[in-house]
């Protein structure tokens, strides 16, 4: 990315560019100047630290955390996986926040005008922390596809938004999890904005019979690899 030999945290053969014209909103929002290399100072090697006190007991269960008089409509799902660093080590204490549309493809956000019903028992937001080995687990319902106005007859594939805050300012990822076999992925300029097929496919969760619970919910597995500064010294006994 730079002539100075600076190796940044992000791999630009994997990460989407700022300008991806098929996704029309990028055209007026993409910076034009090249990024300037920044060697991390202490500020970028530190970040907010979260603990159990930051999370409520139902925060991870989107089928319960906004229920008013029953259960949300839709296909109940379990989404689970492990957050790893680039060395394959589980990352503990990652704050994962998710948000999504309901089963009909409608967000609760006031600006979503899609003509589909809201669900009185579903907000579609959740949060959790990864455990000491990096594992997380959410319970939700499968989100519906929804239309948007990027181009004629544009539909977003079903997805769950993920925000991850890792062990320092550099270890930060906002992404989207998709579902296997979704025919809309091929037409989606957001998904297709990722520069290579292999990197793209990592955002597709895997149906997992082990996670699936009989008579209750389908299981999807979604592991996530976070880029960031090496934190070896941060671990107990590390040197």
């Amino acid at each position, binding site marked *: 990315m*730079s002539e100075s030999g600076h190796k*940044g945290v*992000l791999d630009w053969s*994997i*990460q*989407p*560019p*700022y300008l991806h014209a098929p*996704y*029309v*909103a990028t*055209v*007026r*929002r*993409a*910076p*034009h*100047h090249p*990024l*300037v*290399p*920044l060697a*991390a*100072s*202490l*500020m970028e*090697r*530190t*970040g*907010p*630290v979260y603990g159990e006190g930051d999370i409520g007991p139902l925060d991870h269960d989107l089928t319960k955390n906004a229920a008013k008089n029953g259960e949300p409509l839709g296909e109940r799902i379990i989404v689970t996986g492990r957050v790893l660093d*680039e*060395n*394959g080590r589980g990352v503990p204490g990652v704050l994962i*926040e998710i*948000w999504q549309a309901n089963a009909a493809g409608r967000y609760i*956000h006031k*600006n*979503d005008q899609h003509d589909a019903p809201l669900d009185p028992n579903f907000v*579609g937001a959740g949060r959790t922390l990864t455990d000491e080995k990096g594992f997380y687990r959410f319970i939700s319902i499968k989100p519906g596809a929804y239309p948007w106005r990027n181009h004629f007859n544009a539909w977003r594939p079903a997805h769950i*938004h993920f*925000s991850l805050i890792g062990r320092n*300012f550099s270890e*930060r*990822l*906002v*992404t*989207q999890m998709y579902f296997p076999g979704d025919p809309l992925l091929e037409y989606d300029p*957001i*998904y297709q*904005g*990722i520069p290579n097929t292999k*990197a793209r496919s*990592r*955002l597709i969760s895997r149906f997992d019979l082990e996670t699936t619970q009989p008579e209750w919910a389908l299981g999807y597995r979604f592991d996530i*690899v*976070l*880029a960031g500064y090496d*934190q070896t010294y*941060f671990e107990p006994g590390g040197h």
Partner: protein
Amino acid sequence: MRAQYPSQTVGPFFAFALVREGGNVLVNEQTLGERITLKGRVLDGDNQPVDDALVEIWQADAQGRFRHPADPQHAQADPHFKGFGRSGTTGEGFCFQTIKPGPVPPSPVPCIAVRVFARGMLIHAVTRVYFSDHDNTLDPVFAGLDPARRQTLVAQRCELPGGVVYRWDLRLQGEGETIFFDL
């Protein structure tokens, strides 16, 4: 080595999940340091305010310490200051109630780390904000930046009846485009 996962846009509908009441207020009554408001707009290539962006900040406490184990002095960091804030933008922009950080050695001047997310950005952008009442050329990072562009990182101090406000617009594109970093 594992391959890192790609970013996707935060989209337009994140606020109900990510923007919490008080998330842009980093201080309480006991926090040490000079109270400041950091506010400004996020502007697009047509110089129009982006009213659906998310701005995050991370900063040291008034003594230049971080409440994080990578800081050798973290045990002395202000227990009443976490250092992380989030603000969703409206047409008026973003706004944080915080304190002016202390400088973090080896830099003799303070600054704040900033990250912006938005619909139309497939990946976030990272920048920094410095303060107009310091000689920022003493900062090793700032000193290395293009002098024609580095003023885009400087917030202007305004002493108003309600308190100290630093104004800083973040321009995603076009004339006066903010410097963004490859961290």
